[in-house]
């Protein structure tokens, strides 16, 4: 199969993720969309690795996963705390950080 198709898939997934981050209000959904974008980039990395015939892209993909795992821990903790205090997971409600 033509490896370029994987890149198309990756771009499609990234776009879906980005659109979700921009459009959805629910923090959990936004969060999942971010994961989608990360994994889209992972897919692109692995594909390029395959295309170029070296392992650099695969290693970067592992790094991304590790970072994503760490980010999930912190992010979920924040979301849970916000939900506890506001009884809502809408990212638009948490808009106090402004002048």
């Amino acid at each position, binding site marked *: 199969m033509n490896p370029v198709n994987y890149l198309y898939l990756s771009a499609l997934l990234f776009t879906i993720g980005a659109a979700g981050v921009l459009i959805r209000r629910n923090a959990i959904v*936004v969060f999942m969309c971010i994961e989608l974008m990360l994994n889209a980039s992972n897919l692109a990395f692995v594909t390029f690795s395959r295309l170029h015939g070296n392992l650099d892209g695969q290693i970067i993909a592992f790094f991304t996963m590790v970072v994503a795992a760490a980010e999930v821990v912190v992010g979920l903790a924040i979301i849970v705390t916000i939900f506890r205090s506001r009884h809502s997971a809408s*990212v638009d409600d948490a808009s*106090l950080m*402004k*002048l």
Partner: protein
Amino acid sequence: MENLIGLLVLAPLVGAGVLLTGGRRLDRTGHWIGCAFAATSFVIGAVLFADMLSRSGDDRTLTSNLYTWVPVGGFQADVAFQLDQLSMTFVLLISGVGTLIHIYSIGYMEHDERRRRFFGYLNLFLAAMLLLVLANNYLLLYVGWEGVGLASYLLIGFWQHKPSAATAAKKAFIVNRVGDVGLSIAIMLMFTTFGTFSFQPVFEAVGKAHEGILTGIGLMLLLAACGKSAQVPLQSWLGDAMEGPTPVSALIHAATMVTAGVYLITRSGAIFNAAPDAQLAVVTVGAVTLLFGAIVGCAKDDIKKALAGSTMSQIGYMILAAGLGPIGYVFAIMHLVTHGFFKAGLFLGAGSVMHGMNDEVDMRKYGGLRKYMPVTFVTFGLGYLAIIGFPGLSGFFSKDKIIEAAFAKGGTEGWILGGVAMLGAAITAFYMTRVMLMTFFGEKRWEPDAEGHDPHPHESPRSMTIPMVILAFGSVFAGGLFSLNESFLKWLEPVTGHEEGHSPLSAGAVTAGTMVVLVIGVALAWLMYGRRPVPAVAPRGSLLTRAARRDLYQDDFNHVVLVRGGEHLTRSLVYVDVKGVDGVVNGTAAAVGGLSGRMRRLQNGYVRSYAVSMLGGTAVLVAAVLLMRGVA
């Protein structure tokens, strides 16, 4: 012997320290402590004087280097004293007359609950003045100079509960500051020119310096002298300084403070001798002031202010003489010493009169006091005869010499200066006779005061009359003693130098002329104030009288020219500052503020809008990278 010189200054300084920090427990003995320390200084001075006399003329200078005060690279300031004949003369005058005034103050300040503090300040005054005349360099002299300014401020404003006294003290201090600036500039000029400010090296290096610089130094020194010695144009503080207790006036006018300017010019003779333009300025200031003070003295009804005008005028004589150069230095100092005696005596006499008259100072409310205060009358009278230059008394010898020296200046200048000095002598005779007649002769004019107390004039206590008697002896005999065999001239000549002038008039002619104007002055005063009764309320008077009553509009002049001018200057500077400097700063701040106010709107707190900007930014960056790559 050298070690004693430091003690001269230290004794009154310790006295001041003890009295000012001793607290209430010294209230009962404080005045004796003050007198003791002043007298100690005088005794040490007398010992040193005897020692000095035992040595020959050229070998009389003693120096004493206590320690190096500021050692910084090429700059070295020592605390070092130099006692030569000139300093010795001042030391004896300051500590001698000072001690007498201390003793007098015991009686005069008897009812003042802050008497201890008063004596502390008096001691401080003596210490500062002694430091001034004993220093061997200009920087240490400056310390004494400032000390004198401080002490005079404290003493003039001693009755600070009176707003007028507080104001007078501030006025004296501020006007003196103007002069002090002159002295500090002169010292800086000396240091940059000669690399030192010790007397001896500076005077030796004068020959090598450019005349313009020497003129500058001379003019700055003159400015300093004008401030301390109350010469035109910095004369305005002296009259107001009468707000202080009378012993303070006596101290300021006779022994300390106003003599400092004459000392400075005489001491810096080497500089002035090499700068004829500066000397011309000095004689001009002296001549103008001697008339100025004399005219003011004629119109004042306040006995102390009349005497203050007289001091200004007499110091004018000294400055005039000092400005004449080597033909005048000795006579300036000689007049200074004799003036110290009779002016101290006159002020103490005036204080004694006030003491007996419930602190009344208006001479129109005196009259006929000679019967009530015989000792004061006689001592004051002798001081009066001395100051007008009655033949045989102190003032006659010293003032006559100055008038002679003024004529000896030569040329038109000599005639003008001599004429002014002689006119001054006539006016002196007039206003002093006026004071004498209004106070001690005529009908009694005093009235009950506001509370209905009738003043009962009485003679002052012993502690006050004895100093007056001693000073009266000085007023009578000092001049004759100094002129006997020209002893004062020989004494001071090694320090100041002396040369005979070539007077177009013979000494006899000058003396005869002085006698004629003296008689005219006295006669005129008698016609106006002796022959007919003195009105209790001052008549309107002529234009000149009214001007003189207001000190020839000195305060109005200062107000219009300096105060108003200064106000306009500061206002325009403030305007430039507010509109210009602040405008730029505030404008920048406002521009940045406005811009950030607009930019702030971007921070709306919505996570998603931040995400949009991040995405947009990334897209722009990627596009830019791709574009650049395409271009390359």
